[in-house]
């Protein structure tokens, strides 16, 4: 897993309290994320639990997936409100977003288990915005994210938004997750 810290792509916008049952509903948890053919199935069902009116704000009723590919989304950055990833501890949630091609999430703040799973599994970069962006950015806007500099540019609206520093989790993300990080630090045998 190699996480790029500079990401350019289209925004997919969600609201507050997007819990992990909405990110990947329980009936799809029977796939085993450690089997590659099953890993990609999580991409197909990513965000399948979000009520249609709340998916792809501000208009809503915009599916995460386009007609061309049922597994990989044309969007690569999720913009969300408060408490993203609350609820169940299922790691299948950041797995599903990663499998769908999501490289980063920018939310006001996260539920801690989702944040931890994203970082330790090295699936995507969970960033926090200084200001609420889910009512500013529109689904489909072209964004350019610099995770280390803490800057998000909206190329569609010509705006720039400030992000909070990644802080102590930055080295784990840059290593690609807790296992490569622990090996690099000599905490685990290489």
């Amino acid at each position, binding site marked *: 897993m190699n996480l790029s810290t500079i990401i350019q792509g289209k925004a997919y916008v969600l609201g507050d*309290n997007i819990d992990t*049952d909405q990110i990947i509903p329980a*009936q799809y*948890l029977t796939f085993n994320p450690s089997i590659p053919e099953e890993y990609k199935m999580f991409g197909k069902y990513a965000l399948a*639990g979000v009520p249609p009116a709340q998916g792809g704000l501000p208009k809503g009723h915009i599916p995460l997936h386009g007609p061309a590919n049922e597994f990989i989304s044309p969007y690569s950055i999720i913009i969300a409100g408060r408490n993203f990833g609350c*609820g*169940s501890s*299922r*790691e299948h949630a950041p797995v599903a977003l990663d499998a769908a091609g999501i490289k980063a999430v920018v939310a006001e703040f996260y539920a801690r*288990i989702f944040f931890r799973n994203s970082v330790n599994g090295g699936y995507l970069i969970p960033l926090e915005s200084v200001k609420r962006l889910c009512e500013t950015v529109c689904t489909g806007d072209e964004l350019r994210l610099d995770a280390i500099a803490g800057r998000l540019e909206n190329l569609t609206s010509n705006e720039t938004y400030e992000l909070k520093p990644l802080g102590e989790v930055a080295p784990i993300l840059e290593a690609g997750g807790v296992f490569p990080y622990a090996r690099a630090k000599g905490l685990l045998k290489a």
Partner: protein
Amino acid sequence: MTLTEKILARHSGRASVQPGDNIWVDVDVLMTHDVCGPGTIGVFHQNFGRQAKVWDRDKVVIIPDHYIFTADAMANRNVDVLRAFVAEQNLPHFYDVGTERYKGVCHIALPEEGHTRPGEILLGTDSHTCTAGAFGEFATGIGNTDAGFVMGTGKTWLKVPPTLRFVFHGELPPYLMAKDLILAVIGDIGCDGATYMAMEFDGDGVYCLNIEERMTLCNMAIEAGGKNGIIRADQKTVDFVKSRDKSAKPFVVEQSDSDAPFAREWVYDVTKLRPVVAKPHSPDNRAYVDEIQGTPIDRAYIGSCTGGKMTDFRAAARILNGHSVKIDTFVVPATTEIARLLKTERIDGGQTLEEVFLNAGAKIGEASCAACLGGPSDTFGRLNSAIKCISTTNRNFPGRMGHKQAEVFLASPLTVAASALRGSITDPREYLS
């Protein structure tokens, strides 16, 4: 230091810790189940090798409980993955489906089988692992990668959380339960009010609750975003733990210092509370039952780690005894031990609890997580259409119990039972003389 800080300090080999410290801790018990176990095992094998052994066979507990009584082939395959791993590692603490040892919901099975002890660190691949904080230990949910790391090393890194303190005074009136208390707290602080924090429950109002009710409080710490819920162990805790732990492992009872730095404190007089409901679609969407009394409901559900214990069924039976339900009512004991007790425990020397439920027209399922989290479409009690359900479970975000447009109201077993009798949201005081 607070109780949580003391436990984390001792497990990191430090004299003291402060909120915000990043520390490596030794883990006492790691629990996983059929939904996250296969992924955890995959992470373990990928990173430590096919020949690797878990760090301590005696500290790994595997409890299949989520998708058990289903024809879903993938779900059944996942239990086979657990079986193969248990055989490969020769693990002693495995509660396999279809055997005498099968238990049901992991968070209730853990204490019943003696895997919870004061002062320990328990990690589990399930967000409701925080339930075990009721035994005076640090317990929290983790993902597959973290669990795979713990499996191989016995260690994990944690950020020490600040502690919020919730003090309850007074003895609960007969129409209230721990579920009303925790729904009131979540309504006050919001479903992100304790994000990254510990929630310590304290006060005479907590210590007069039985062990199961204390588990209900800690179980829902996660619904406020809490890292853990915790209650200092008292004599009731110690007696329970000693009666269940066959290994008789020594444990350390700790408590918050009198000058412990709590980030914030809330104080409740429990005698003044009224029955509480969390309306769709969030556990913090609080209403008092008397404010929404009469709201029509299609289904009632009594079960799960938070609402399927003996205390919950005794309460529901008190209301249902001698009456008939008006709507589909599903009863799911959390564990096989509870299922057996439903057949033997009698209400006022008369019918067994099971007879009370069946005679009232309720359906009784087999011990497991069942419809609390939806699951495969043939799951007992699952909401397969856009109906309204009142439930003793712990989460009501969209789609949690199955259908995306279904509406779930969370309430105590007393309120759910009273609502089942009327087919609408009903105050349990109407059935309690």
